[in-house]
Structures are given as structure tokens and as C-alpha cells.
């Protein structure tokens, strides 16, 4: 537990320290990130060897306590967060094109990581509200780093984030009024499927869906992610949207009454399919590169939502593994994709997809990273995305009454293949290539490649990973 606390506190103190010292030092953040990563790994080892642990802040008794809980999946998410953060930090510090090198990016990103880690560790509704607020504000501030052009999307993001928090808070209040507890484990023993519980859960869900940009409340995401600086886009897509998803998952799989979950599941799953199709369609049509990647986030979250909805509907814990595999695979792939896309468009001097003509020749590594990450998004074997899809497909195909859902996966796969290869095919156009404005930055390209390789490398540890995830999720 100490290690987990360290992983939470190191980024927070780094952020504070940077603000106090008025320093914007990238290397320092990288160092502390390394420390965070080490702490998270330690926590992972700890939780694997000695099981879940919890910590009561201030030693208050149960109903009032603010409780931090370290579960295997939490530990994994800590490591995942630290990893992505470290990678993006290295990118932000080293890349020639990164416009965030000497800006407020450093404290904000640390704050973001800290609040996210707090979110993973928390296990009561109000704590989550606080961490969500922190997370949202940090994210909005990061988006606004991009300058005047990003103000509009950032403002939208801010407004909706606040609104979502309010809706969520309303739900929390209802729950508190009804049961008098906020801790999720306590709540799990008490909830009943009555009207007020239903409304409360629904309100919380809507708020969280808006924060996680789940369809149909995703509208803010493409603009916000696309207009943010490259490093920020990567963080937002890979990490931030996963926070609310985590809360949703815990709410519905632990706290919610079973009947309610069964009833709500299909709605979420249908929303997931819609996200897959409509998000995918938008990605297929948009003329802007980063927009394409952002829409792909909307679409890919559809998989997670679908997994969650079906998990609730069928009460199948096996789908937990699918859900978290999706989160991991998508996070890694998307980080890679945004970094690659950012590098590509900065080097080419154009934000359009059509500017990518001939990039396999001029910037092979970046394009390859994009393609490899895209392969995982499509779910090509043996990438992480494939493993997740397999885990999702298995219970679907196992029983013939579940078969119709498969159509969603099928179409989702095809459409994601469509938007990934839309870019890749263009990159092979040698007849009329767009010359780059600068000499390509090989280091940054390899950096973008790294998470993509990791996500394909998951295949090497796939079986222990799946076994671990299946056993690890409560």
C-alpha cells in the first residue's frame, strides 16, 4: 500500500514543487515519472504476492472513512498510467516539434497523473467526484495550452465536464440520501432495485458517460483531442477517458443491484455498437488527421462500452478481462497513434490526411508506428486489440442467442480497418508525395513506435495476462 501511495503522491508533489519553484523542467518530471513507475511496479508486485489491500485515511471508521483500495487491476492501471505518462514526458521533452516543452504542461501533466492515480485507488463515490473534478480541470487546462485556437474546444470541454460532474454529484447525493453510505463495498451490500436507486445510478452513469465521451455524449472529444498539443492528445486519449470508465465499471459490477444491471446492460451495449459504427464512420470521413485519431477513440470506446454493457447484461465476469484488455490495448495504441500523427503533421506542415501521401518513403518509422498501432485498433492478431476482441467474442459466440451482437464487432472491425488503412494506403502513394518541411526526427518516431510494439508484444505474455486479469478482477 505504501508503494501505491507513493505512486499517488510523487506526481502530486512534483506538480506542486514545479509550481512553487516556477520551474518547467522536463528532465525533472521524467525522473519523478520514473520514480512513480517504480512505485507502481512495486505496488503491482505487492498486490500480486499478498492480495488486495486497503487504507483508511485519517483512521476514521467505516461509513465516514475515505478509503483507498489497492486491487490487482488498480495496480495494473497505476503501472499503465505511469508508463504512458513517462513515455509522453520523454516525448514532450525531446521532440523537436513538441510545443509544450517549456510550458505549464509539466505541472499540469503531473497533476493529471496524480489525480488519475487517486481515481484508480479510490473506492467511494464522493472521492471519485473530487478526483474527476481535478482530472477534468487539469485536462481542460492542458487542452488550452495549444493557444487561441484551442480555447473554443477547451471551453466546451470545461462546460460539459462541469455539467457532467454536477449530474454525477446529483446521483451521488441521491444514493447518499437513500442509503447513507458512499463506500462502494458497503453500498454493494445494501442497494436495492427501487426507483430512486435507478435514477441515482442513471444520473451517475450519464455524468460519467459524458466525461468518458461515450456515445452519444462524445461530441466534445474530437475537437478537444484534435486541437490539443500532441503530447496532451496522447495523454487524454490514452488515459483520461479511461478514468470515468473505471468508475462506471466499478459502479455497475460491484455496487449496482443485479436486476438493474441486467436491465441497463443492453442500452449501454447498443450505445457501444453505435459508437463503433458512427465514430468509425466519422473517422472514415474526416479530412483531418488528428480528428481521425480522435474519432477512432470514440469508436474504440464503443468496444469497451459494449463489453461493459454485455458484462452487466449477462453477468459474465469473464468479460472483465475483455474490458481491461481493451483499455490497455487502446491506451497503448492510441498513445502511439497520436504521437505519430503529431510528428507527421508537424513535419509535413499540414493537418490534412491527404498530406500523408508518400510518407512511407519520407518518414517510414512514424508511418509504421501509426500502422502498427492501427493494427491493434483493428484487432489484428496477435496484437493486444486482438486478444481483447477474442475475449469479447468468445462469450458472444458461445451461445446462439448472443450471436446478433457479433455483427456489431464485425462491422466495428471492418470500419476501423477502413479508417486505419485509409491513412496507410495513402502513405504508400509514391506518385505524388508531399515533401516534408523538416528533416524527420527519428528519435520521436521511434518513441511513437514504442507503445505500438508493446501492444503487439502483449501477445508474448498473453496467456498469463489473461489468466491474471480473469483472476484479478473481483
Amino acid at each position, binding site marked *: 500500500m505504501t508503494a501505491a501511495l507513493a505512486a499517488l503522491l510523487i506526481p502530486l508533489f512534483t506538480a506542486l514543487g514545479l509550481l512553487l519553484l516556477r520551474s518547467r523542467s522536463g528532465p525533472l518530471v521524467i525522473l519523478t515519472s520514473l520514480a512513480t513507475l517504480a512505485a507502481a511496479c512495486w505496488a503491482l508486485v505487492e498486490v500480486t504476492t499478498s492480495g488486495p489491500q486497503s487504507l483508511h485515511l485519517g483512521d476514521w471508521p467505516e461509513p465516514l472513512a475515505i478509503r483507498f483500495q489497492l486491487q490487482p487491476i488498480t495496480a495494473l492501471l497505476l503501472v499503465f498510467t505511469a508508463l504512458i505518462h513517462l513515455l509522453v514526458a520523454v516525448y514532450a521533452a525531446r521532440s523537436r516539434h513538441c510545443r509544450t516543452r517549456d510550458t505549464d504542461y509539466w505541472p499540469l501533466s503531473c497533476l493529471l497523473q496524480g489525480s488519475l492515480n487517486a481515481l484508480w485507488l479510490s473506492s467511494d463515490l464522493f472521492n471519485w467526484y473530487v478526483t474527476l473534478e481535478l482530472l477534468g480541470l487539469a485536462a481542460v487546462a492542458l487542452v488550452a495550452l495549444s493557444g487561441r485556437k484551442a480555447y473554443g474546444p477547451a471551453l*466546451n470541454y470545461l462546460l*460539459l465536464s462541469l455539467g457532467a460532474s454536477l449530474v454525477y454529484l446529483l446521483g451521488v447525493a441521491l444514493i447518499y440520501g437513500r442509503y447513507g453510505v458512499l463506500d462502494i463495498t458497503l453500498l454493494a451490500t445494501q442497494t436495492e432495485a427501487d426507483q430512486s436507486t435507478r435514477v441515482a445510478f442513471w*444520473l451517475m452513469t*450519464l455524468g460519467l458517460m*459524458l466525461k468518458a465521451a461515450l456515445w452519444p*455524449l462524445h*461530441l*466534445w472529444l474530437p475537437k478537444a483531442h484534435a486541437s490539443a498539443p500532441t503530447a496532451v492528445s496522447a495523454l487524454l486519449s490514452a488515459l483520461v477517458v479511461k478514468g470515468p470508465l473505471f468508475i462506471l465499471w466499478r459502479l455497475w459490477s460491484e455496487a449496482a443491484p443485479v436486476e438493474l444491471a441486467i436491465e441497463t446492460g443492453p442500452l449501454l451495449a447498443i450505445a457501444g455498437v453505435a459508437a463503433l459504427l458512427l465514430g468509425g464512420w466519422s473517422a472514415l*470521413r474526416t479530412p483531418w488527421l488528428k480528428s481521425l485519431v480522435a474519432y477512432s477513440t470514440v469508436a474504440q470506446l464503443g468496444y469497451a462500452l459494449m463489453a461493459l454493457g454485455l458484462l452487466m447484461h449477462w453477468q459474465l465476469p469473464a468479460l472483465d478481462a475483455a474490458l481491461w484488455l481493451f483499455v490497455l490495448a487502446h491506451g497503448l495504441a492510441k498513445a502511439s497513434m497520436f504521437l505519430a500523427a503529431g510528428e507527421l503533421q508537424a513535419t509535413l506542415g499540414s493537418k490534412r490526411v491527404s498530406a500523408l501521401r508518400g510518407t512511407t518513403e519520407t518518414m517510414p518509422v512514424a508511418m509504421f508506428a501509426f500502422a502498427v498501432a492501427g493494427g491493434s485498433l483493428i484487432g489484428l492478431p496477435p496484437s493486444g486489440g486482438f486478444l481483447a476482441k477474442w475475449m469479447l467474442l468468445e462469450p458472444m459466440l458461445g451461445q446462439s442467442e448472443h450471436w446478433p451482437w457479433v455483427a456489431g464487432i464485425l462491422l466495428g472491425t471492418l470500419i476501423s480497418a477502413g479508417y486505419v488503412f485509409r491513412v496507410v494506403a495513402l502513405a504508400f502513394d509514391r506518385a505524388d508525395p508531399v515533401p516534408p518541411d523538416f528533416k524527420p526526427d527519428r528519435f520521436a518516431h521511434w518513441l511513437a513506435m514504442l507503445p505500438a510494439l508493446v501492444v503487439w508484444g502483449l501477445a508474448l505474455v498473453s496467456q498469463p495476462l489473461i489468466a491474471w486479469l480473469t483472476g484479478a478482477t473481483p
Partner: protein
Amino acid sequence: MAWLWLLVPLTPLLLILPTLYWQRATRWIWLAPLPAGVLALLQPDSLRLPGLWPGARWGLPDDTALALLVFTAGLWLLAGLFAVWNQAADSRRRRFWLFWLLALSGNLLLLIAQDGASFYVGFTLMSLSAFGLVIHSGKTEARRAGRLYLQLAIMGELLLFMGLMLRVHEAGGDMELAAWQGTPIGTATLICLLLGFGLKAGFWPLHIWLPAAHPAAPPAASAVLSGAMIKAGILGLSRFLPESSELIGGWLPLLAGIGLISAFFGVVVGLLQRRDKTVLAYSSVSQVGYLLFVLTLVLTADTPALAGLLLMLYVVHHGLAKGALFLGAGLVHEQRLPRWGWALMALPALALAGLPLTSGGAVKTLLKDQVEQAGMAQLIGVLTLGSASTLLLVSRALWLMWHSQPATRPTAPRLPVWLSWGLLCIAPVLLPWLWPELRQAMLNSLSIYASWALLWPLLLATLLMAVVIRFRVYRYWQHLRLPQPGLRFSLWARRWLQTRPLSADAPSLSAQMSTTVRLRALERRWNRLGEDVVSVSVWVIALAVLWLLI
């Protein structure tokens, strides 16, 4: 010793390389069939070649095969010798020799094949390479003939392929030709084989390629085409069909009828032709008709051995005589023949018509005997008429040759040419004395009755010719143009292939555009809806909550 059989088809194949790359080798290329002849004399055991395909076996099953091998090798040898001279000045002679050797290899292989697959391999090799011989001259006429030949050869191949498959299946996977003799045959198999081999043999009505293709080839090639290759069809039928079965019995009258029709059809149409080699080709059609007829005798007769002997003799006799005539025709087109040359030329012609003391007289007599024995005495008259008409036809051929010879005398005597052609010409007379089986048949035909039976149709025909020439009867059909359905079909097929159907109609461009535009507008409107991020999201939440409360 058995491995020596490999030399028979391989020698020609191995000679291809020196022919292509070493000009002087062509002078000795005519010796390629020699190993076959030598082996026919040595008669080693048959060779099993499981490495090729299961059941592959090469060798000589019986005397018929032996005789055919010797005769075929001899004909190819002599024709080859002729061709060495004839092709000496040809700029494309390497190509000629290439196809010559390939066809030779195929022809020899099918003769020594004792299993169905080997036979088919040889048959195909021979058929397809003969295409190169047919179109050798490159003239329009040759190319047309070649196209038709190839089209029908391919059809024949495929029918044969099907027949072969069916036959193997009927025999339970056994590939030995000998075993097939006792295996009953199905209707489909029979039809496939009849059509497949019939297209090669060229009897009516499957002859359509023959009168076009044989004249188009160079003379040596025509000689082997007409003399040796078309026999492969008849040989194939005799090898592939069972000796007696119910089904065959039902088909025999039809086949015999076709044979006789073919025999007279060839004569009638041949008489109307205006080119010597075409007339000779029609004579082949006619003679193949007789062969088919003999084959039906083999399949019905109580003593198939004798009928089989007749078939063999007939094949050899016709092959040599026709070879001599085709070579002669080639010779005549190049130079004027001396008087004795014409005398030589008359020998095979008369032999074909069945003059006593020649191989023709011998086989005709034998044929009549067989027909009588088979209880079809009423056909004797028809056969007699056949002899008369054959004489008419060959006379017409000789007459046309006479008129087509160039004005110049031969510049220099060329021994090999005279030797090869002369040997072939006197073969019909010489052979009966050398070959015991044929000698017996000839001696049988020398009785007064038999001789008279052979002679009077010839006299009748001579009389008829005298009348025709005296009163210029031929002027009535001089300008008659015969339809050539085969060539027309062939041309039509080519044209059909070369005019491609238009691609399926694509939807008109404007319609496509307008749909795209409309869809694009729709998409824009939809996108604009998403522009107002906050309000839409708020609306969605509001509606959701409202729905929830209700």
C-alpha cells in the same frame, strides 16, 4: 534390355537440342526413328516405368503393334529423308524439325504404349505438335487450316481425356490396355472415345479439318500426317474398346455405316476438288472410312485375329501408299518428273485402288473374304464399287499433279530424294513379297476369280474416265463451290473470341454524381448538428433524464 524402350520416344526428343543449336545436325535428323526400328527387331521385354505414373508400361504387346511400329518408323524415316532435302532451303527449318521430332516422338510413344496414360501422352504430343507442321508455310490458307486443326484437336483431346478417365474408372483403376479388352464399356465412354479418336482419324463427319490441314503442310509432313498419324485414331479405338460387348454390338451397324458413307463421301467430294493434295486428303477420308469399317469387323468377327490382321495390313498398305503419293505431289510441285517417275507414282495409286499383285489387291481380297464370313455378302457389291471409285479419285489426283508440275526439268539428281520416294512408291509391290502375312494374302488374291473381281471395277472406272474426258462431262461441276463448314466455324469462333463483350453497364456518371452530392449534403447537415457540442450533449442528458423519470 527393357530400358532400351526409353530410346524410342526419347531419341527424337534428345535430338531437338542439336537441331536447334547445330545447323549441320539437321542433315542426320531423319535417322531419329531408327531406334524404334532396331528395337522392333530386337523385341526386348516390355519396360515398366512406375516412376512416371502407376501402371506405365512400354513395349510391344503383339505382332500388330510390332508391324505398326516398323511401318511407322519406316515411313517417318523415309519422309524425314525427303524432308531433309525439301526443307534444305527453308529459312524456318529449325522450327519444322522441332515439331517434326516432337510429333515423331509422340507417334512412336503411342505405338509402344501398353497403358492408357502413355498412349494418351503420346497421342497428345503428336496431335499438338502436328499443328506446327500444318501451319509451317505461314500462308493464310495454312494458318486457317492450322487453326481449325488445333481447335478440333483440342476438342478431341478433351473428349479423349474424358473417355480415358471413364475407361480407367470402368477398369477399376487398371491402366493396362490389355486389361481393357475384357472390360465392358459404358455409353458415355464409348461416345467420348468415338468422338475423340474419330476427330483424329478423320472419318465422316469428323473429317472437316483433314482436307484443309493435310494439303497445307509441307509434303513430308503431309505424308506422315496422312500416312501415320491419322491411323493413331483407328489404333486408339481398337486398343481402347473391348473386343465384344453388348453395347458395342448395338453400335456396330452405325459405325459400319459411317465407315462406308465416309468411304464414298471422300470420293465424291474429292472428285470435285481442284488441288492435287486436297484430292489426296479426301482420299484419306475415304480410306479411313474403310479402316473404320474393318474395325467394326474386328469388333464383331468370330475370328477377330484374322480381322485384326486385315486391319493391320490395311493400315500399313494405306500408310505407305498415301505417303508415297503425298511425297510425289511435293516433288511434282518442285520439278518435272521424268517418265519413269510417273510410272513409279502410278504404283501406289493403283495399289490404293486394289490392283492385283500389289498390297492393295491383297487387302481388298482379304476384306471381301472377311465381309463374306461376317455374313454381310450383300456388301460385296458396295466394296467393288468402292474400288472403282477409288481409282477415279487417285486418277484425278494424278491428273491434277500432271497439270501442276513446273515447266523446268530437274536441275540435278538428288539421290536421297529419289531413294526415299522411290522406295515408298515400290513398297506396295515389294512389300507383299517380303512380309509373310501379306504374301499369303496376295497369293490368295491371285486366283482367277479373285483377280477378276479386283480387275473389272478398275476397267469400269477406266471406261468411265474415258467417257468423262471425251465428252467433257466435268464442265458441269467445274465451277461448283463446295461449302466449307469447318473453316467457317473456325473463323467465326476466332472472331467471336476477338470481339470482346462490352463491360457491364456502369451507372451513368451524372446519376452517380447526383447521389454522391446528395449524400454529401446529408452528411454535412449531420456534421453541423454535432458542431454545437454543448447544447446537443445537454439535450441528450436532459432527454435521458426525462425518459428515466417517466
